[in-house]
């Protein structure tokens, strides 16, 4: 569906040559994200996969402007959001882009009740006419993520890991944003609730046409939810294409290695599994360039 969308629509988010570097000390700079370009169309789900430390979370945090990008351009909802933000743009961003954070505990204020954590955005933008309506909205979203309205009165530490994660999901969804950056938002959930949350995310997408940047390490889930996928390695995007392209015709050796490692729920198969190794020590991605494999399928080599 996205391929048709791509021709007809303007992208909702366009990231061009993004770099995000962190200076740790005089002699040590972490080049977390390098020259990354991709776009997300309205109503689309773009999956971002790659090894731990490859820069997935950093990309999310740069886009939602928790960091000042070192270099590159980010256009969101027709506004340039890569430089200094004026008040109007900042407000637009806060309303239309939400992030579900990887670390549920550290992103929830332990002294606030769940209801107030979820209601914060509603309060800032006055998205209700009275208190009753506010509590109704909060209760509804709690139910949608598989919690109960009574949970609004509890504090974060009284929840299990997966329950907290769902609070983070509810906080993002309640704002009806145009783009949701979901950073490992289902990994702490049991498979049945994962399925429930993923189904819910799909329903909400059908209803509101929001787009997702879906960061995850579980490739079977990424495959299931994404329209297109980008594969990151060491801060570089090394391959991007439709979900079908990536899974049935992976071209980059890193993508191939990643796919060979997907665990299967089958003990006999798992105990005999062989991984395809990938050694990147000799490649310099900075010197590589993009090649089109087909349609929207591109690879860095």
């Amino acid at each position, binding site marked *: 569906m996205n391929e048709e969308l791509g021709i007809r629509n303007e992208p909702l988010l366009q990231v061009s040559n993004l770099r995000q570097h962190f200076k740790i000390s005089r002699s040590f700079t972490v080049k977390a994200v390098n020259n990354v370009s991709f776009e997300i169309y309205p109503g689309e789900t773009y999956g971002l996969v790659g090894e731990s430390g490859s820069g997935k979370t950093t990309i999310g945090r740069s886009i939602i402007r928790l960091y000042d990008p070192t270099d590159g351009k980010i256009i969101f909802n027709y506004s340039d959001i890569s430089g200094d933000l004026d008040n109007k743009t900042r407000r637009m961003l806060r309303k239309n882009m939400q992030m579900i954070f990887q670390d549920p505990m550290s992103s929830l204020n332990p002294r606030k009740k769940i209801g107030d954590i979820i209601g914060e955005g509603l309060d800032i933008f006055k998205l209700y006419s009275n208190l009753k309506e506010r509590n109704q909205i909060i209760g509804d979203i709690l139910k949608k993520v598989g919690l*109960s309205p009574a949970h609004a009165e509890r504090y974060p530490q009284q929840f299990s*890991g997966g*329950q907290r994660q769902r609070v983070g999901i509810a906080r993002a969804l309640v704002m009806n944003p145009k783009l949701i950056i979901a950073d490992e938002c289902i990994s*702490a959930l049991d498979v049945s609730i994962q399925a429930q949350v993923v189904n819910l995310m799909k329903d909400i997408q059908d209803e509101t046409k929001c787009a997702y940047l879906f960061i995850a*390490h579980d490739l*079977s889930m990424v495959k299931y939810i994404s329209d297109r996928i980008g594969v990151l390695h060491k801060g570089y995007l090394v391959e991007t294409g439709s979900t079908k392209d990536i899974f049935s015709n992976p071209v980059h050796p890193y993508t191939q290695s990643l796919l060979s490692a997907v665990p299967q729920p089958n*003990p*006999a198969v798992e*105990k005999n599994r062989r991984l395809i190794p990938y050694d990147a020590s000799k490649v310099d991605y900075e010197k590589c360039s993009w090649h089109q494999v087909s349609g929207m399928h591109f690879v860095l080599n």
Partner: protein
Amino acid sequence: MENILSIKNLDITFRTNAGNIHAIRGVDIYLPTGKTVALVGESGSGKSVTMKAVVGLLDSNAIINSGNIFYKAIDLLTLPKKELRQKINGQQIAMVFQDPMTSLNPTMQIGDQITEAMFLHKKISKADAQQKALELLNLVGIIDAEKRMKNYPHQLSGGMRQRVVIAIALSCEPKILICDEPTTALDVTVQARILDLIKDIQAQMGLSVIYITHDLGVVAKVADFVNVMYAGKIIETGTVEEIFYDPRHPYTWGLLSAMPDLETDDDRLYSIPGSPPNLLHEPKGDAFAARNKFAMKIDMEAEPPMFKISETHYAATWLLHPDAPKVELPPELKSRLQRARKAAENQL
């Protein structure tokens, strides 16, 4: 087989403003020496709480109503807190917590956090401790480990933090390692590496492992035995083969059906209908009954006991009662199990 850890009839309640939550309702878990036992189940079913009871780190509003937790011959629940800390925790039993940020100190460099753990439990020189910390970071796959030792937790990615916590847990060479979702934030290649690392240590030093995870692929890879938990109880237990090829509890069926494999391309994923019971008001009968399409009248009235299927395989469902009607597995699951068994045969 000797058990290095035996949890017997553990029962825990939390006091809250809203009332008492009966979170753990008589749990038995056995960890045979040198083996890996996986604990899977519904979010909120009590996996983390059970393991926190083992390491004596329950929240202050928890009440242990009954039960024993034997480490070898010592009942940990009878030890004073201080003794538990000094003699057992960290040294004999180490735990990797679900949320790495909660066990890392945000104001301390990670190198110091690893060596601090070693100083606490061992006589070791500063230089040796640093050397060992470096080795551990390398082992868990942190590149540029020497530079990374000077990083603060927020300067690391989620998966790197998780690996630091694993390194800390391994630093004191424990006898039992309890991992609560240790690889949730790790991509598949790093995850495979960590799992292999734990297996290597296990083979070398006879480490025993309890592994809490939602990822059934990981369970298939690491576990010798599997316990399935629901609403504060173990509802099925067996060898990993028994659970994956011949599951008997309808909740386990639901779990296995909900995980997409790379073949799945249905429009919607299967998810178990309904939601878990609110343990503020404990359900009568089988806690899973309301969500179980095979539920019978008795499920609403009485809790099923553990029925024995083999020496190692038990499940708590009335469907296993000799008088219960035979039920057909859901067709999707049936074909999936067939596929799995076939793939397994092809491995031989």
